[in-house]
């Protein structure tokens, strides 16, 4: 479109031909009031408040609405002549006669100098600006709202004034409504369902976590209006670099690497199979992870520790070793739970007035400052009960146990079985390998220990490398550990991986197979045996050939060769025979 010159209030400006006067005025910093204008939507021109006077310099003049008047070369606009101001004032007074004193209208009235509207004030909070209808139509694409009736009976409504099935509850109409006539209503008084708590707002487009790599926003297609109705796309309209790509999909990429570090982490133990703790049966029995979600300031409770009925607990019990040190679950100690249980106890003490009970078997507090922290908690009057919790029940036996959860535990230090009534139970769940750890380790050709953690090359001397060269492991996938240890191990794995990468060359196994060509009969027995395709048939020579770079040195082909033409370095038939002789001769 061609660039043309127009003047607004005497100020010249160059704009695209056909662009709207309101936008040009904005560029010049001239404010023209509006009531029904919204960026990224087609101008509606219903409120007429943005009226300005247009002239051609030759005597022609007309009052036009600046929001949708297309600019032409030589156009002169005046935004504040008496005629324009009178028209604006009159329109606003007429609107006020029907509408309640809503802030947006009062502000405009002040701007235009209306002190006492001539026809008084009305009661309607809808100014019929049409923004809700337009956003639902043009941007969201749900088409759930429309104007109905004509003239003075005009109003915004859903079809037949019934609850619309097309409404996708996006809240766009409430957001654009300038008067607050449309509000989002919470139609259910929900109770807190602890295991449904998620962190942060469920925005349709947001940076997933603060540490996300790359640190850019991602569209959550479940909540995004565009993926629901095909409309909106406001994000791509405002993005200055045009980065939004709605067609992006998951893609599989083949990346050639030299070394791999597996840092796949752990899975939190699900205490549901341990029926005695009542998880999933009673409300207010939550895992430590769920507790942390609730405790987070960006969660739904704003960081408050609340029971399902929105009240604060008077007593909280924290049960250690759930899923750890347990023959019915995992026999090993998960290493981190004691410390985080103490942390939770401390948090609860800080945030609420509740009594806190920690039920432990042994208090495992290695690490810097850990034991001191434990001391501190004892001084904070946290109750430490040494004993395994037998069960958590809601079956009350005394009046003070009514409507509460009761923890039945043997307190071994005083040698008594106790029933302790609490309002909330936090289960300190252990760490376990991911469900798919087996698949992952097969993929990388490494081993797992009996517990399912990835196997390191040597328990003492090779904590980050595996039996497969080039594959390293770090973090909780190798075994339960806390953050400082993980960080250390990660550094180690990175360093070792870098060594390989740095070297640039790979040492081949020395124990590869080799062929003595004279002995080879060309029977081809060996060729299909090699899983690494290191054997091939040389058609000219009519014998086998070995690719030494591919050979991993398993020796399978050697064992199969009828003529003994194939032999394995370091593991020749001769050598092994001698070895056998040797070990048996040693009496």
């Amino acid at each position, binding site marked *: 479109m061609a660039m043309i010159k127009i003047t607004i209030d005497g100020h010249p400006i160059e704009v695209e031909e056909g662009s709207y006067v309101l936008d040009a005025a904005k560029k010049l910093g001239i404010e023209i009031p509006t009531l029904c204008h919204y960026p990224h939507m087609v101008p509606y021109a219903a409120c007429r408040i943005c009226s300005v006077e247009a002239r051609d310099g030759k005597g022609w003049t007309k009052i036009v609405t600046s929001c949708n008047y297309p600019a032409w070369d030589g156009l002169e606009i005046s935004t504040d002549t008496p005629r324009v101001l009178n028209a604006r004032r009159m329109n606003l007074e007429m609107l006020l006669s029907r509408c309640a004193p809503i802030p947006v209208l009062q502000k405009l009235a002040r701007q235009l100098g209306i002190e006492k509207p001539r026809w008084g004030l009305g009661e309607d909070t809808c100014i019929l600006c049409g923004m809700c209808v337009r956003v639902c139509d043009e941007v969201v694409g749900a088409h759930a709202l429309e104007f109905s009736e004509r003239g003075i009976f005009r109003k915004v409504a859903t079809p037949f004034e019934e609850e619309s099935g097309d409404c996708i509850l996006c809240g766009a109409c409430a957001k654009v409504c300038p008067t607050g006539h449309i509000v989002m209503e919470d139609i259910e008084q929900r109770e807190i369902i602890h295991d449904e708590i998620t962190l942060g707002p469920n925005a349709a487009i947001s940076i997933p976590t603060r540490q996300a790599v790359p640190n850019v926003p991602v569209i959550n297609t479940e909540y995004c209006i565009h993926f629901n109705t095909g409309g909106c796309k406001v994000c791509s309209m405002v993005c200055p670099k045009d980065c939004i790509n709605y067609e992006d999909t998951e893609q599989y990429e083949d990346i050639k690497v030299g070394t791999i570090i597996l840092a796949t982490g752990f899975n939190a133990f699900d205490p549901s199979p341990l029926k005695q703790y009542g998880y999933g049966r009673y409300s207010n029995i939550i895992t430590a992870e769920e507790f942390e979600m609730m405790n987070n300031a960006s969660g739904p409770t704003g960081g408050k520790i609340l029971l399902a009925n929105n009240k604060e607990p008077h007593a909280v019990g924290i049960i250690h070793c759930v899923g750890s040190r347990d023959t019915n679950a995992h026999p090993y100690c998960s290493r981190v739970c004691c410390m985080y249980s103490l942390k939770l106890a401390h948090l609860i003490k800080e945030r609420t007035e509740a009594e806190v009970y920690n039920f432990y078997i042994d208090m495992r507090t290695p690490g810097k400052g850990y034991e001191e922290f434990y001391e501190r908690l004892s001084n904070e009057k946290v109750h430490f009960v040494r004993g395994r919790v037998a069960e958590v029940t809601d079956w009350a036996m005394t009046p003070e146990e009514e409507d509460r959860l009761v923890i039945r535990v043997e307190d071994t230090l005083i040698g008594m079985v106790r029933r302790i009534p609490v309002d909330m139970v936090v289960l300190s769940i252990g760490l376990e390998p991911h469900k798919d750890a087996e698949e992952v380790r097969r993929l990388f050709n490494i081993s*797992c*220990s009996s517990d399912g953690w990835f196997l390191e090359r040597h328990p003492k001397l090779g904590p980050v490398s595996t*039996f497969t060269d080039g594959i390293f492991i770090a973090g909780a996938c190798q075994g339960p550990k806390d953050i400082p240890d993980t960080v250390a191990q990660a550094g180690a794995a990175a360093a070792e991986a870098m060594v390989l990468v740095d070297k640039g060359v790979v040492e081949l196994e020395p124990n590869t197979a080799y062929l003595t060509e004279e002995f080879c009969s060309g029977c081809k027995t060996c060729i299909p*045996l090699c899983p690494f395709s290191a054997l091939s048939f040389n058609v000219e020579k009519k014998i086998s050939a070995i690719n030494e770079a591919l050979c991993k040195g398993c020796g399978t082909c*050697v*064992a199969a060769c009828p003529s003994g033409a194939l032999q394995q370095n370091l593991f020749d038939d001769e050598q092994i025979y001698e070895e*056998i002789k040797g*070990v048996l001769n040693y009496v």
Partner: protein
Amino acid sequence: MSDSSMTNNSFEPRIVAFFCNWCTYTAADLAGTSRMTYAPNARVVRLMCSGRLDPQFVLAALREGADGVLIGGCHPGDCHYQEGNYKALRRYKLLKMLLRKMGIDDKRVRLEWISASEGDRVQAVMNEIVEDIRKLGPLHLESWKYQGNLAAAQELSDAIKGVAYV
């Protein structure tokens, strides 16, 4: 002719163990570092993979005076070299047939899958096999009169090798 089943409790079997480097050998290592004790009767020959095991090695071991042979490899699917242990299994099955034909008690040769972390398994298997062989008594294969058959057995063994990869 069957071998003489002399039950002699003071008899200490001599067992050769062919262990694959990655799994069973490491497991034995683990058993060692974990201070697990087991019968010392086995002598370990390390192979890179149980697939390296030529059935002739077993026969050679028996010929040289072993009373039993233990073959140790990775669990199926876990072979460091993908499929070597499968081949070992096939060869082992055919070998057992051969031994029976030869009149050797096939319980003397045993294949076990032991993974790298199963140090306790090494201990268990070792103890077991020693007891089993002890019950069976010494083999004394070198004193067998059927030398001729041994040569035939060796020929048969070669034939097995050819079939092993099918």
